[in-house]
């Protein structure tokens, strides 16, 4: 059973599809997914796109900040309408062109990443919002992965653990000739 909170009224087909998704993926644990539409800067999309004709030509986009300037997802195989519904910009679509709410974006991901999607439903991938017991609210895929650039950039780690006063820790020696990368200094002595 799947309850997507905050489904848009536009995405009526999504309700039936969610039940189907749950039954096809085995005994998935019940879960809910929070709405993210309120966090979208340019929403509602049709304020602009309602007055523009959809253009399916792959081209360099001249867009304001907030819209993705480039699409690194899929290595050049995708264009906007691979995921977005060109008939209604406030909806997404699956690879089989079924329209979906923006809040059900994880089901678009399921179109290609079905194994990850199963793990996400089961709890082996992704993150639970709160509590280990009780209501199970999951973070949607797009909470962590930018859908236009899904790889997560490296960042700085938290500081390393302190060493007890008076001691210094052994570090690896990258240039060491030995097969042991942590060869201690005293083995390099010339004294025989």
């Amino acid at each position: 059973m799947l309850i997507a909170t905050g489904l848009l009224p536009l995405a009526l087909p999504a309700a039936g599809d969610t039940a189907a998704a749950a039954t096809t993926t085995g005994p998935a644990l019940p879960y809910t997914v929070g709405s993210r539409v309120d966090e979208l800067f340019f929403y509602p999309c049709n304020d602009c796109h309602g007055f523009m004709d959809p253009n399916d030509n792959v081209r360099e986009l001249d867009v304001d900040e907030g819209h993705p300037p480039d699409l690194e997802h899929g290595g050049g195989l995708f264009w906007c309408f691979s995921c977005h519904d060109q008939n209604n910009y406030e909806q997404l679509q699956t690879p089989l062109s079924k329209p979906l709410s923006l809040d059900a974006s994880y089901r678009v991901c399921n179109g290609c990443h079905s194994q990850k999607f199963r793990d996400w439903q089961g709890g082996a991938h992704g993150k639970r919002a709160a509590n280990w017991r009780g209501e199970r609210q999951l973070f949607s895929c797009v909470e962590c992965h930018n859908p236009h650039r899904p790889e997560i950039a490296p960042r700085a780690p938290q500081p390393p653990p302190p060493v007890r006063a008076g001691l210094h820790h052994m570090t690896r020696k990258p240039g060491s000739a030995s097969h042991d990368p942590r060869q201690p200094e005293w083995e390099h002595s010339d004294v025989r």
Partner: protein
Amino acid sequence: MSDDKEAAVEPQGAGTRRNFLKNLGLGTAGAAAAAVPTPSPAWNGLSFREAFDEFFRKHYKKMSPQEIERTLTRIERRAKQRFGVDVTCKNTPAQEGVVYGYAINLGVCKGYRDCVSACVQENNQGRDSQVQYIRVLEMDRGNMDLEQSEHYYDPATVPVEGKFYLPIQCMQCDDPPCVKACPVEATWTEPDGIVVVDYDWCIGCRYCMTACPYWARHFNWTEPQLPTEELNPDTHYLGNRPRPRGVVEKCHFCIQRTRENRQPACMEACPTGARVFGNLLDPDSEIRYVLKHKTVFRLKEDLGTEPKFWYYTD
């Protein structure tokens, strides 16, 4: 309890046995004369009964509910003196039908160490002490030799090319060698599978640290130094309550949180969702999904300590 232990509880020297006995005599005389039960400085701000209880305290498992209640009040009063903060010390019992298990997805752990800093804050560890319940080991890809890991790694950004990250903490073994090693039964397994320490009962002999194959137990050499405003006032007797110096501490799966259905602090802090926590006895739990559907392993499984802590990759 030795003199050293008492001194460790009160490093100012006010709590040595000699002082205690001296004060005991004075206090009894004073109490008899005035018959006022208000706390006096002679008891380090405690009432006579609390000071008496502290000196002649019992093992946690042998305390009556009333004695536990008095102990918790005493701990709270002491924490108020020490940090000037109102601390609640709980004694939440284990939930029925729950045995905790943990799993870490090594495929998505990036070595950020957010779990470590969250753990330090949650459990009121000294900011400069080397007591950290979680160590994140930086390992070469294709190499599972823990001896060649590096836990002091500090590059500009993580993950580093060619490395993977393996967080270790207490594995909450089902057959824990540390518990067998303890000569005073200051550590034991709770019904929900958490191996806990009674800090008031620990004599600091560190046998358990030697027995543990996972480097999960840590000896606190100093009183934790931390800013008062960062003190976590939500504590549990068997968990993150203010500890005396000179006892052994360990990860307790955030007993003060998990027994109230909250996530452990490390799991809540993990930005990549690498950590999975849940009830091993519930077939519909996330941890059971991981154990059923993913290829999992445990560290040093051949030692037969039956850790309840699994690793897997996507």
